[in-house]
């Protein structure tokens, strides 16, 4: 072999030191870090507080177990999505008692900003008694969380602008029941007390929801 000059040496050194290629799924795992940190923080809060959080401990434990089984940064299957949704709703439960009323116009402004979608104005959507409309982080996506007054109690509507479910499913714990439904442009989750007829809100929102492409 011939001796290589300095330039060739530097090129060779450069190519060798930059040769390691990250695993194909590493970027995706790293993008999930905020959601996992949020879930871990939620678990810690639930474990350290009494009162409201005590009811959520089984959910936190379930979520933790699922995360453990998924070995840290694995993508979430449906069961984990359900657990994440339940954990999120318990975390936001403090807003259930709010007496605020958010107008359709105000709600649409927040939806536009967070997920680039809105609800058509109609008597049905104008009649919704919405008292929370905020963005949130669900399924690795900036999503929208509405809390509205249902027939039997607060109803959470979660609008995820990503296809995170390939079929409609229902899920429940000992307090809430809900549905996860793939819709055009994303996924719609509706969750309420176990007696709540969530289907009517699912249909109402789905019929009036418009994505701004």
């Amino acid at each position, binding site marked *: *072999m*011939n001796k290589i000059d300095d330039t060739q040496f530097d090129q060779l050194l450069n190519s*060798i*030191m930059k040769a390691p290629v990250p695993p194909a799924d*590493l970027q995706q795992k790293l993008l999930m870090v905020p959601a996992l940190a949020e879930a871990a923080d939620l678990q810690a809060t639930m474990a350290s507080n009494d009162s409201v959080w005590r009811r959520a401990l089984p959910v936190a434990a379930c979520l933790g177990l699922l995360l453990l089984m998924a070995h840290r940064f694995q993508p979430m299957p449906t069961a984990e999505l359900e657990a994440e949704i339940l954990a999120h709703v318990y975390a936001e439960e403090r807003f259930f008692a709010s007496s605020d009323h958010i107008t359709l116009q105000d709600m649409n402004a927040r939806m536009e900003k967070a997920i680039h979608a809105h609800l058509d104005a109609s008597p049905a959507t104008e009649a919704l008694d919405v008292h929370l409309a905020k963005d949130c982080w669900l399924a690795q996506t900036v999503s929208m969380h509405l809390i509205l007054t249902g027939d039997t109690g607060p109803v959470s509507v979660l609008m995820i602008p990503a296809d995170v479910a390939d079929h409609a499913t229902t899920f429940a714990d000992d307090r809430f029941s809900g549905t996860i439904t793939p819709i055009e442009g994303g996924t719609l989750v509706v969750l309420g007390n176990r007696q709540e007829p969530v289907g009517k809100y699912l249909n109402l929102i789905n019929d009036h929801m418009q994505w701004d492409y």
Partner: protein
Amino acid sequence: MATQETADNTVLESNAARRQRYEALVRDYYQDIYRYACWLTRHKPLAEDLTQETFMRAWRAFSSLKSQDSAKAWLFTILRRENARLYEKQRPELDDIDEHEMALPDAGHLEPDQQMEANLLHKAILSLEPEYRIPLALQVIGGFSGEEIGEMLELNNNTVMTRLFRARNKLRALLDGNNEQD
């Protein structure tokens, strides 16, 4: 009420913006961070874990990143500290590097002589002492100057430049010695 909503929106916007900045950071730097972790640990599965720990730590400490311009050096520093915190004290220094794990990818475009040189240099870098290998990795992968490396490793500039010079000399000597034998 209006004030509360405004405050809520501000917080929410800042959370969304924070996520966006974090995601940009991942996209821009995760490959270099992983590469640096490989040369730091000389073990790919460990490098992957360390990369994840680094970004987890970065996310939690995101508010301490004052400027996007310093993001790269910030991440490299987090990685080195996480490695020290998590692995250096708990893991004995690897005497036998898993050469299969750290094998150089086959470069089909190289002539056999060049491939041999590449393999030789690769092994030589792996066997460099950390005091030489780490500054070299920061310079080659991160593109940092001697002064920046000094700040990251808490060394003065002269020490860094000396180590970089010696690291290259060691590698050159090894390559040249091998070439002379041929």
